[in-house]
């Protein structure tokens, strides 16, 4: 072995080692966030914290029950709009769209999913909140649903494209019409991917803060109608984190723990289910 090849060999080892180091550096924040959140949240977690209304500003006690309720409502309402539109768009792209028109829609779907969520927030704020002169839960749901549509559309298209053509042909050959084939056969065969995509989209919008801040704001009470502000987990974390009271900061960690558990739990389960993709 010549001198040169020894140098190359060591260079190879060194740089491969640096790549592992890069991964290590990137994982420090992840582990730190999970560990610190769990550690600071554990003392706060009890039944009162999960079910009660917040105590008066700056006083101890109380909980974030209304924030959990509000996030559940905002996310469900957004899903009611975002998932059907997204799934139908995905069906169009996979089953009906041809040539340039489908490419254009696919491209703009990608572009829409690249919009910063605060821009969607400014859009809904300027369109709805400024005109009706108050913040409202439905405005927040509209903003969140806009964020969902491109995500659901893309995953739906991907999973329907995996359905073999022979299944479509078999159904059409039996005289089943195209819409029925699409809904009862193609969508049914590809449903696990579609459901996975929808769940992933839900977990993504559950933690969105900026668009809700601009459209729904927050409330210290229980949900009182779609036309009124409502509390939510992300905004509770934000307001409590910047508050001057130690007790509220502690509760911010508690709320963050619930949100992290929900979001990371869904992400991990979904990735494990769709693991086949990595093994191809």
């Amino acid at each position: 072995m010549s001198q040169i090849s020894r140098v190359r060999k060591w260079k190879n080892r060194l740089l491969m080692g640096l790549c592992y180091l890069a991964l290590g550096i990137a994982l420090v924040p992840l582990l730190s966030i999970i560990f610190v959140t769990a550690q600071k949240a554990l003392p706060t977690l009890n039944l009162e914290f999960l079910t009660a209304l917040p105590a008066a500003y700056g006083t101890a006690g109380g909980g974030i029950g209304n924030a959990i309720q509000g996030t559940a409502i905002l996310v469900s309402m957004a899903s009611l709009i975002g998932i059907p539109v997204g799934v139908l768009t995905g069906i169009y792209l996979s089953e009906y769209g041809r040539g340039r028109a489908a490419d254009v829609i696919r491209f703009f779907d990608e572009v829409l999913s690249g919009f910063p969520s605060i821009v969607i927030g400014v859009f809904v704020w300027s369109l709805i909140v400024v005109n009706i002169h108050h913040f409202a839960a439905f405005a927040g749901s509209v903003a969140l649903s806009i964020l969902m549509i491109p995500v659901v559309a893309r995953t739906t298209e991907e999973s329907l494209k995996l359905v073999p053509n022979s299944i479509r042909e078999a159904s059409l050959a039996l005289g089943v019409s195209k819409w029925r084939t699409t809904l009862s056969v193609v969508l049914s065969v590809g449903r696990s991917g579609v459901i996975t995509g929808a769940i992933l989209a839900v977990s993504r919008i559950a933690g969105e803060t900026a668009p809700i801040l601009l459209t729904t704001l927050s409330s210290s009470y229980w949900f009182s109608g779609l036309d009124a502000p409502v509390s939510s987990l992300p905004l509770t974390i934000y307001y409590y984190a910047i508050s001057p009271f130690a007790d509220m900061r502690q509760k911010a960690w508690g709320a963050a723990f619930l949100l992290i558990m929900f979001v990371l739990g869904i992400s991990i389960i979904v990735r494990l289910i769709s693991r086949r993709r990595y093994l191809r």
Partner: protein
Amino acid sequence: MKARNQGITRDSIFRVLVTIAAAITLLLIAAIVYELYNGSTASIKAFGLSFIVGTVWDPALKNVFGALPLIWGTLVTSAIALILAVPLSIGIGILLSEFAPRVVRFPFSLLVELLAAIPSVIYGLWGIFVLAPTLRSSVYPAIQGILGFLPLFSGEVTGFGVLTAGIVLAIMIIPTITAVSREVFNSVPNTQREAFFAIGATRWETAKHIVSYARSGVIGAIMLGLGRAIGETMAVTMVIGNRFEIPSSLFQAGYTMSALIANEFNEANGALYVSSIVEVGLVLFVITLLVSAVARALVWRSLRMYKGASME
């Protein structure tokens, strides 16, 4: 015969339905563009170009709005994020597509993707109570000890400021750049690797070739990360210090477009103030639109080139 006719009509109804759903995306984008432009006309009329180059933001007395410090803050924090995140992300991307044993590729990818799943507001919370104190007590004094003679690293160290915001952004865009560049590397034809191994190249030399072969896709991945950094709001708002000025030192507090929107939308009284905030949104929107359109076109093109297939 009747049944068949019905089938045809239902078919066309369904076709129209899915086409409408698909068109909603286009309508939404058109509505967003229209609303942002329409909402900012008052401000555009009042200030014109001086909105972009002006450095005074005075809603209280003079009712004058100039957003240069915000644009500067957004661009500088994003640039810091890229400088820190790009080498790490490309390194991890190479690791996950070329070096790492197949068994660990899935768990490693999963861990990096989890970074992307954590909500922005939680990065902000962690930034306030864990990252900023750590940087203030150990990292920043060390940087100042070595590079303190540069104006860029001078001044008082609070832990909150432009550099801290850039670091948080870097952490947040690592998964984006990593995932896309890994995908681009994976799509490079195997013949490229085999040719290099066949002439006795080491794995690193081969990987270097793969990166340069896939460079347009890598640039696209970087720009996707940049797009995400430019629009990021909550985490930045919570650690940048929110002071409306062009800071001379990276340790100083600054402000970004998104942070100003998040802080002031609720105080905006008066049509011109509201309009100016919408115009900040419009500027932010135009910048991210340009960045992400170029990025997606690059990624799309390079994946298509290798696979002969569509984007995914």
